[in-house]
């Protein structure tokens, strides 16, 4: 690079004039980039959805609830009367597995648990923070189906989380529950679709039953 300035004196080459527009571009895109990174990366759609822990027994909902057509409440017995949807005790599995596939190696853990009385260490999939209080019975009585919140469990080999369970997700439905409502006796029917427009069908159910989900903070935080 030759310059016509005095020898010994440094002169910025002409291309350095590009630094200013380049800097302008960086200053605009970098913050936008960082915001996008935190927004997308920190969103529960990225961090929470798709959580599918490995379970101690290769238990398949697709087989039991799907192919064999068992009702969710056969195992999750408390779901209609309590806040909590009980994970079945080993005794429930042994109702059948004392006789069906009684020697299967895939059921070894279940038989050991039955013999020892120690619980099977199932891994919790859906887990709200301890300061948020969810209640299954309130939702099932109002006619919100399992599928609205847990997805098509009856097609899952291993249960995974399909919705964010974030506060925004709860409130979206509490503000407008209509498209998610169905007759309360059909809550465990996984492939139920509303006859006609779900919002219109739900609106009639909501008005008939006087359903009015609360968005007050103390509904979910105590």
């Amino acid at each position, binding site marked *: 690079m030759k310059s016509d300035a005095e020898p010994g004196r440094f002169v910025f080459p002409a291309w350095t004039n590009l630094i200013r527009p380049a800097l302008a571009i960086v200053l605009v895109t970098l913050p936008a980039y960082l915001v996008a990174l935190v927004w997308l990366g920190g969103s529960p759609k990225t961090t929470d959805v798709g*959580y599918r822990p490995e379970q101690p027994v290769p238990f398949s909902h697709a087989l039991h609830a799907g192919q064999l057509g068992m009702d969710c409440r056969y195992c999750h017995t408390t779901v209609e009367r309590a806040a909590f949807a009980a994970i079945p005790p080993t005794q429930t599995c042994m109702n059948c597995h004392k006789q069906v596939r009684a020697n299967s190696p895939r059921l070894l853990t279940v038989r050991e648990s039955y013999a020892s*009385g120690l619980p099977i260490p199932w891994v919790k999939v859906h887990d709200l923070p301890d300061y948020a209080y969810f209640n299954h019975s309130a939702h099932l009585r109002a006619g919100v189906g399992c599928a609205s919140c847990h997805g098509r469990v009856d097609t899952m080999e291993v249960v995974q989380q399909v919705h964010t369970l974030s506060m925004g997700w709860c409130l979206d439905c509490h503000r407008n529950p209509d498209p998610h409502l169905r007759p309360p006796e059909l809550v465990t029917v996984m492939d139920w679709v509303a006859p006609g427009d779900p919002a219109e069908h739900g609106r009639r159910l909501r008005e008939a039953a006087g359903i009015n989900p609360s968005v007050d903070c103390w509904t979910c935080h105590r």
Partner: protein
Amino acid sequence: MIALLKDVPRWLIYAALVATALALVPLALIARARVVTSSEPRVHLIHDMDHQPKFKAQAENPLFADGRAMRPHPRGVVPAGSAGAEEGFATGRRGGIWLASLPVPVTAELLRRGEERYNIYCSPCHGLAGYGDGPIAVRADALQEGTWTPPSSLHTELVRSRPDGHLYNTIANGIRNMPAYGPQLPVADRWAIVAHVRVLQFSQGATMDDVPVELRGQLAR
């Protein structure tokens, strides 16, 4: 201005290109995290009060040898409200004799409840109509399980002649190879199911004389 670009040192251009490419990596990772499943729980950067020192239902508690925070009932304990006012409500037996009829009033509500509960807890084995042809029985037959006892048909003379209290006891404590459904069913629901079993038996043994006259035309077709 564009002409100036070719004077920019090569390393600087490469550095800018590499930086841009690297900047896309986190976005690609995020996009990937949104479509694949993960067996790792989410990372709690800020714990807030997500994990409080309290025990929720079915949580783990290292203080007990079996690790259960919810303590199992001691032997012989009867949950409040399930003993009932009437003798035999919780046992199906009065003075050592099976109750011949339900200790609760039979209402349309009870029958509806009984049907729903029967379909949940009994139909997998006994079938919706009670012939012992539920999906589990069918599958077990297909698997040719030597250990499998076929569920009884509920329409045999024997089961028809059982007193209501005996049916109740079958549900609560099981019978021979049938498991007990007491742990899954509250007392009131067991009686509702007994009522529904009677409904099934009646409906499967019904004759034309049991059908109201004005509806017979529909059946004849």
